[in-house]
């Protein structure tokens, strides 16, 4: 017997979030960044606890001290990288290489930390992916993908998602992932077509406008072209990225199951484009102040287009043995906001 579809929802509001965000920001500044770990916990607790599914909230249990340790390691690594890259490039590159080699390990610890510290109805999530597979999925495959001019990129994306979802648990129940590699290629192909069309039209326009006058372009024309390329970059990404996110998230979640329960994700490319486009302009016009409001708008949209299709009662999940993980991973992955949720 099938149960009714349960939609995710966000019951918080952006003005509450703004207050929490700005107070946390000033406390972080006043404590020279140390409070940022506590701020992160409070911010995530606000977001998790206001995320509802079937009448219950999620919760976040990360401890600030664990996050602070991770942040310190991440800052030391990235600061030494960027400083030495400018002062002594050889040493800088060596540090960069070391960071690249540790990164997959940090991805795993970060996933473990994040999932273990997330709960729903009092049951913890968990992650049991091996470090070895992480090196294959987050280091070897991306390198192979770059070497093949990104022909392997959709395959790499598929493998990394399969690795993440197949190794995640909720209590004693396992997540599973059954999207095909071909379906990833299909989405990437359409995105590629869009980019080629936009960039091609732009290049043709430039060519026709300045035909025959290449050898002595006035400064203003070159300025216009450079500004045009920048605008094109923004517009292409503002139009193509939301389409890509919507399609790929739908694909990923529609092929993810938790035990016998399935997920339904029906984000619209148009709806998401509107959110991201308007957020972009509002952030630009408010010189960044709108950022927390923008974050909530985007989160709310994503959550409201995700639903769980239970196969039986949600009451039947059972807790698993609890385990401990270090916080180091999650922070190194976050200092540049590497979005591994895509």
């Amino acid at each position, binding site marked *: 017997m099938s149960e009714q579809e349960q939609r995710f929802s966000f019951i918080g509001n952006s003005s509450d979030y703004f207050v929490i965000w700005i107070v946390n920001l000033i406390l972080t500044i006043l404590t020279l960044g140390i409070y940022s770990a506590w701020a992160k916990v409070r911010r995530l607790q606000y977001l998790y606890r206001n995320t509802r599914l079937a009448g219950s909230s999620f919760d976040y249990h990360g401890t600030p001290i664990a996050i602070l340790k991770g942040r310190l390691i991440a800052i030391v690594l990235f600061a030494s990288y960027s400083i030495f890259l400018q002062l002594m490039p050889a040493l800088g590159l060596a540090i960069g290489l070391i960071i690249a080699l540790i990164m997959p390990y940090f991805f795993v610890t970060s996933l473990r930390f994040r999932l273990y510290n997330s709960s729903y109805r009092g049951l913890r999530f968990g992650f049991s992916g091996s470090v070895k597979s992480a090196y294959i999925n987050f280091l070897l495959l991306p390198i192979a993908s770059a070497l093949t001019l990104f022909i392997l990129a959709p395959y790499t994306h598929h493998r990394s998602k399969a690795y993440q979802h197949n190794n995640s648990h909720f209590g004693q129940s396992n997540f599973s992932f059954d999207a095909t590699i071909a379906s990833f290629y299909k989405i990437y192909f359409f995105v590629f077509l869009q980019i080629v069309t936009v960039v091609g039209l732009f290049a043709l326009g430039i060519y026709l406008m300045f035909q025959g006058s290449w050898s002595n372009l006035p400064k203003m024309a070159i300025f216009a072209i450079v500004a045009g390329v920048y605008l094109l970059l923004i517009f292409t990404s503002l139009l193509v990225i939301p389409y890509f996110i919507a399609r790929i998230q739908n694909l990923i979640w529609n092929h993810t199951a938790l035990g016998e329960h399935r997920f339904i994700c029906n984000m619209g490319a148009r709806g998401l484009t509107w959110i991201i486009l308007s957020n972009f302009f509002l*952030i630009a016009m408010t010189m960044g102040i709108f950022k927390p409001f923008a974050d909530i708008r985007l989160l709310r949209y994503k959550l409201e287009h995700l639903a769980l299709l239970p196969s039986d009662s949600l009451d039947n999940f059972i807790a698993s043995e609890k385990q401990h993980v270090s916080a180091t991973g999650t922070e190194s992955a976050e200092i540049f906001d590497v979005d591994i949720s895509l």
Partner: protein
Amino acid sequence: MRNISALYYDGQSARQEAVTLSIHNGKILLQGDQLEREFDLDKITISAKLGSTPRLIHLLDGGHCEVDDHLGFDAMLDESGVSPPTLISRLENSWHYALAATLLTISFVLAMFYWGLPYIANMAAERVPDTLSLTIDEQVLDTLDDGLAEETQLSAKRQAGLSARFERLRKKNERPLAHLEFRDSDEIGANAFALPGGTIIITDQLVELAHNDEEILAVLAHELGHVKERHPLRQLLQSSVIGLSMTWYFGDISSLLAIAPTVMLETSYSRNFERRADLYAVTLLRRNGIKPGRLADILERLENDHTGHQSKHEAYSPIFDLFSTHPNTDERIRILRHANTTK
């Protein structure tokens, strides 16, 4: 006796159970259809208020309760005299503090941009050992010689003559220590620039563009100003901090948005450095009996050279100039001309 409704989870399964909560005699009582439990108030943790977020009560046995009835819950806690709101949650639940925090943050960011960061970068730049900055110079020169620039076409005599006049600009052993490097480069065009370790590179194209040696010395005096105040290192440090902060703040997609303001902020720093270097040049030139207007003369010609249609490297240099570190040249020329007429 006040009763409020809540949801109870035992921590063993995902089963959701509606319960009523009440407090009496230092104990909290949970009553549901199939359960009745009691906990000492000092052995449970109640989550701090966080906006309108559901309140969580963590019980000793791993279970917890979710409460949506904020008013009722606060009143119940009040009546039984437990858990006053923590300082942080008081801050987070007030619009007054939020407004204050917003203003404080904006002032802090502005203060950091105008005073803090330049001050810190200056202190840090002073502490970078000379050997290290010289290593940077060598690396930049190596990169230049890898294709951007050729060996100079100037005769050894001409080079020696210019170097000698450059040395005489300053008193013997006067800081900063600096030396000249000549290069020929159509790509870079007429230009001179200072590196962190005191190396000043001057292109043949600039020597060619100058109408007399005093103009060349004026440019070199300006570059000496950069070296003296360690502008190259400071610019490097300041740009890194601005770039990192932008990436951190905007994150994912909006980092594209961050390119324009980052370039603008960095340009504003370098504009200031140009003004400072001009000031230094004016003093140094006057001391050597050279009119500061010489710098204005060659600046004007440089500007025309970079903008003009007749230049042979026009296809490249305008793009350089677009994000160039020498904006507002007109204003600089005006100031220098003014310095020329006043004593």
